[in-house]
């Protein structure tokens, strides 16, 4: 993931209980996700430190319980503020 991608926002939406093509982005906006099946866990697990915003509390609990290595942000503005300091790619390097 390069730093240019920090502006890329993937907006997931609807009932994602069955496998569908997944939109990729530096930030995943889950505010319009109704439900998320476990099929997506492997995809998220392969993207450590993936930034996520907008998940409903119930959805966030589900994903946290699964132990997925996600970075949770309250809003897109928060992600952008965080990006000013340390970019996602830099952050990933720190954890390698």
């Amino acid at each position, binding site marked *: 993931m390069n730093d240019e991608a920090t502006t890329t926002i993937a907006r997931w939406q609807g*009932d994602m*209980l*069955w*496998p569908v093509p997944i939109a990729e982005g530096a930030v995943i906006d889950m505010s319009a996700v*109704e*439900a998320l*099946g*476990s*099929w997506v*866990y*492997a995809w998220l*697990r392969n993207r450590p430190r993936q930034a996520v915003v907008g998940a409903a509390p*119930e959805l966030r609990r*589900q994903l946290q*319980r*699964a132990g997925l290595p996600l970075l949770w942000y309250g809003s897109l503005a928060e992600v952008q503020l965080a990006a000013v300091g340390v970019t996602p790619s830099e952050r990933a390097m720190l954890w390698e």
Partner: protein
Amino acid sequence: MRLLLVEDEDAIRSALDRALRRWGHEVMAAADLATAKALAAERPPDGVISDLKLPDGSGLDGVRLWGVPFILMSGFASFDDAVEALRLGCVDFLTKPVAMQTLQASIGRLGDRCRDWDLCLISLEGGGSSLIRPVPEGFDEQQIAVESLEWTHPEEAYRLFEEIGSQLEGKRERQLLAELMQALPSGRVVVNAAAGWWRAWLAGTVDWQADDGARDRRAVIADLADRIVERDGGMAVECVRTRVGS
């Protein structure tokens, strides 16, 4: 029915013991959780009537352990306790002092639940495609909707899921069905949507240790369901239809 009665107050336990026997039940009475566990290990009960607060733990701990229909009683019930009891499939949550008439009505419901569950297992072990055979006496068939879904390809499973999924009321039920149907590339799920209850039978053995995906799915199913029974040839999953937070 064989009932396990767990109550630490001697006077209440004796009174309930007598009443239950008078109503024709076999009773195993215990004053604490440890004794109750020993009795249940010796002879598994059909149902449990337990005080919530016991000298050596919570009645909910026993309920989790035994996994049979149960009634909880408490003089100090909190909202959280009631929610947890509901989540675990509590038939009734009674506040003490409990009127005998109320308890008798609750035990009637407990009996319905026990019969329902036995019926489910008997039918499944027989390899039948329906959970409502044989139909018990007094059973109102109109209240039960049974759907048997069989597929040989994931695409077919998805089509079937879309058909029946729209009939399910809650997000939780919908997700549970989706997870079950994706657990096997081909297989059969029987869904029994009774009033207030939802139950499915996943025919076919799933190797949950096979990969992370399967383990993830197992964890989600376990989280969504109130009760899972795994046996040779498949898995039965049961949940209450309405759950706080669902």
